[in-house]
């Protein structure tokens, strides 16, 4: 499917959970969804769009914490579309559900998001520290800005 068909399909599948969307250029699509729809999104990536996770970016956006999922999915003519999905959560409830049980390759990026901005990934099978040292103080997050 091409980029426009993908947006149409996402509108149908996610309904009101799809908050914003734009096509930046060929093979680059950015969307913003409700954080409770992230597991549905992951299932779509795996079962319908035949894609995988590349990495996640955790962002401190002031009052909110954001998590950007960078997926690669099957596009047209043997090419891939890079689909970037942003979810956000208020800083006082920094909780997002895991997608590691759906896409096992998400384990490292989710653990990294926990380390770096202090997101709490609910249901992560191994929530231990990934990149921060064992003697790093609790509750200090290197990528927090505000």
């Amino acid at each position, binding site marked *: 499917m091409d980029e426009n068909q993908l947006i149409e399909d996402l509108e149908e599948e996610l309904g009101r959970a799809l908050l914003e969307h734009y096509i*930046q250029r060929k093979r680059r699509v950015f969307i913003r969804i409700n954080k409770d729809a992230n597991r549905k999104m992951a299932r779509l990536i795996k079962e319908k769009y035949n894609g995988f996770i590349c990495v996640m970016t955790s*962002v401190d956006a002031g009052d909110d914490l954001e998590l950007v999922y960078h997926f690669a999915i099957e596009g047209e003519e043997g090419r891939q579309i*890079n689909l970037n999905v942003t979810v956000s959560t208020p800083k006082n409830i920094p909780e997002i559900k895991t997608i590691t049980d759906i896409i096992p*390759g998400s384990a490292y990026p989710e653990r990294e998001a926990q380390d770096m901005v202090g997101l709490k990934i609910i249901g992560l099978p191994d929530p231990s520290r990934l990149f921060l040292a*064992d*003697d790093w103080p609790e509750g200090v997050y290197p*990528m927090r800005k505000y």
Partner: protein
Amino acid sequence: MALKIPIGPQHPALKEPTNFSVELDGEEIVDAYVKPNYNHRGMERLAEEKTYPQVLVLYERICGICSQIHPQCFAQATEDALGIEVPERANYIRTIMCELERVHSHLLWAGVGAHELGFDTGLMYLWRDREAVMDILEMISGNRVNYKMNTIGGVRRDIDERKIPMLLEALDAYVPQVDLYANAFTKDPTLRARLEGSGILTRKEADELCVAGPTARASGRDVEVRRDDPYAAYEEVDFEVPVVDDGDIMARAVVRLLELYQSINILKQALKNIPEGPIQADIDEIPEGEGVGRIEAPRGEVIHYVRSDGSWYPERTKVRAPSYVNIPALIPMLIGDTVAEIPITVASIDPCWSCTARVAIVDTNKKTEKIMTFEEIRSHYG
């Protein structure tokens, strides 16, 4: 209870620090665990304090082997975020640099692999031939590593037309050498005995862990950014993507050796067809925006994300190097193998990292394990 052995921080396969613990039943590995948290360099945080051109200098130092890939990937992400169109000639020069980097990296890997097998003659031959490509890189950029070729919107140095016949000749000299190594790795009975059937990663495991690069393509997972999401001038050159289904260490060696032929092929096409024109785009303003750069590095997909808030400083950057997805794949590879295969199995994904754990103290009699912090080590031994 199975015996647990900590391996690392100073690692047997690569002179870089990480910690593995493997659980053994006799000689067979029954479980493995990776801890990559020794050394986090904090580059993403540092990048937020620097302007875009300064970040290029910083990200060039992520990896001494991929010192073209990382700044180029950051530049691509930034160009998308800021809406900059890169001139054709600059795209060709980037393609040439990327492929030269792949040639030197794959030869370097093959040398390390040979060394891990105790085949040091192979190491000496391979690294001798790697020097020729380092000379080509120096001829183009002025540097053996950290080439400083990229800038936001293009490249900094042009390729002199008079050098092109010389470069083509140097590349032609590579083909018989690659033939020699392909022959040695696939025909030699000792190497085959070590490489075939060990360190197996199945297609299913590769798909689940989203592994990348030659590690993926040796397990039948057909992902290749140069073809799937073409960047620079890759849309304009013809090449094949070697995919092998076996999933063992031999398959990973074969994929990399076949890729060497493809790289030489791409380099020749790019050098012959390079268009005339400018090598840098003009930048008028920095708008708000976000962009994603994807590159097929020698080890797999590199992805950079950049978010711009309209200032000179990037609001957030994200770097993912291919070993980030390939290191977790070591666990299924190691399980079922013997201790003697650990170094070559770890080396077979061509790992590249800068992280590990402290010291693990395992008391097999009391069946306990404790990780010591730096302070504890100092008070204990200092």
